[in-house]
């Protein structure tokens, strides 16, 4: 397909299908994240990118036979490799025998949170999560450095004028969005604070927040969104988010490894929010 717009839309649908597949596989938290990240943020980021880079792909000049051969060979080898793997859904598979039983049996006494995924994420594997927040932060800095250094003011003005003229035409879209946005934000907060008991948590809430903000920016123009949320503020918030997370870690280590006050859920949305707003 040469029309990248259609490609992006299809990949959004693909993400949504993946998310529903995750629900069928009992991974509700992952499904939630995939739905908000894959179908929401990814599609929005892609759309903003193709408005800047052009909508159509040029026809390829070389024949794809070599690529096809490489792909088929790799695929064949991988399928051969699966013959030694445990069967699908086998409770005796190696993956289920080591740390998972401990998480399932003891996390209620040790953490006191019914959602095992949340307790593992925030407590047992907190270092991973800290690393993840740092990665997001670094990526955010990278995106900022790449996009804002070279941007000249006249470019901005040009983009804004194109945006503004476009937005005035979509009256229905704008009104519907205006009605929807408060509900989206409310839902994000619900997901955030209900994460202990049901699926959900900081990342998903942050992503939903971001989606709402990007939606707003797309429909009302960048300048309006900038007025609501200024860029330095976001930078500050993200830095604070990372610092709080790191700080809580250090403090709890000093207190003899008391992780009960680990309030990871309230820090991550900030990072998520930061990430999304960058590419508007």
């Amino acid at each position, binding site marked *: 397909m040469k029309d*990248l717009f259609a*490609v992006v839309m299809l*990949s959004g649908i*693909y993400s949504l299908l*993946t998310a529903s*597949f995750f629900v069928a*596989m*009992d*991974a*509700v*938290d*992952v499904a939630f994240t995939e739905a908000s*990240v*894959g179908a929401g943020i*990814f599609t929005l*980021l*892609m759309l903003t*990118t193709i408005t800047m*880079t*052009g909508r159509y*792909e*040029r026809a*390829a000049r070389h024949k*794809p036979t070599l*690529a096809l051969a*490489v*792909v088929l060979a*790799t*695929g064949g080898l*991988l399928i051969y490799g*699966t013959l030694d793997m445990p*069967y*699908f*859904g*086998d*409770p005796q598979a190696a*993956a*289920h025998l080591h740390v*998972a039983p401990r998480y*399932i049996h003891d996390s*209620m006494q040790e953490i006191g949170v*019914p959602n*095992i*995924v949340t307790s*593992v*994420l925030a407590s047992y*594997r907190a270092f*991973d*999560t800290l690393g*993840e927040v740092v*990665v*997001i932060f670094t*990526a955010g800095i*990278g*995106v900022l450095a*790449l996009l804002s250094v070279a941007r000249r003011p006249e470019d901005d003005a040009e983009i804004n004028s194109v945006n503004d003229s476009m937005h005035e035409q979509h009256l229905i879209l704008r009104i519907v969005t205006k009605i929807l946005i408060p509900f989206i934000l409310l839902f994000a907060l619900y997901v955030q604070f209900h994460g202990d*008991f049901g699926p959900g948590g900081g*990342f998903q809430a942050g*992503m939903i927040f971001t989606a709402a903000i990007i939606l707003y920016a797309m429909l009302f123009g960048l300048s309006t969104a900038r007025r609501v949320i200024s860029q330095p503020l976001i930078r500050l918030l993200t830095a604070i988010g990372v610092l709080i997370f790191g700080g809580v870690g250090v403090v709890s280590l000093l207190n003899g490894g008391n992780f009960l006050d680990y309030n990871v859920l309230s820090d991550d949305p900030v990072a998520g929010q930061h990430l999304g707003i960058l*590419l508007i």
Partner: protein
Amino acid sequence: MILGLYNYWIVIVLMMIGFYIMIAHGNLIKKIIGLNIFQTSVFIFYITIGKVDGGTAPILADGITRYSNPLPHVLILTAIVVGIATTALALALAVRIKEVYGSVEESEIQEKDNQKC
């Protein structure tokens, strides 16, 4: 029963689709989408490993004894969020390349590089 391995084959097919898009297409945006499909196939791989027959979602409740393995879920949760961060970085790079070269097609970028030398 060799058919009990079908989940891995689905993953491999998806992974190869992503791989093919990555190496056969010249458009940088399409390459990023291919990378994304590749990434999702790895997510699906982990999640299917975590699935246990007759298990439910790993949220503790009374009267349920068998849960799916929560560990892959946690890992993939992290992976998805890191994935979107790297994708955003890749897209930002694509936008910069477009600004400098005026194109996101690999062949055109190479032509311009060759002219400069």
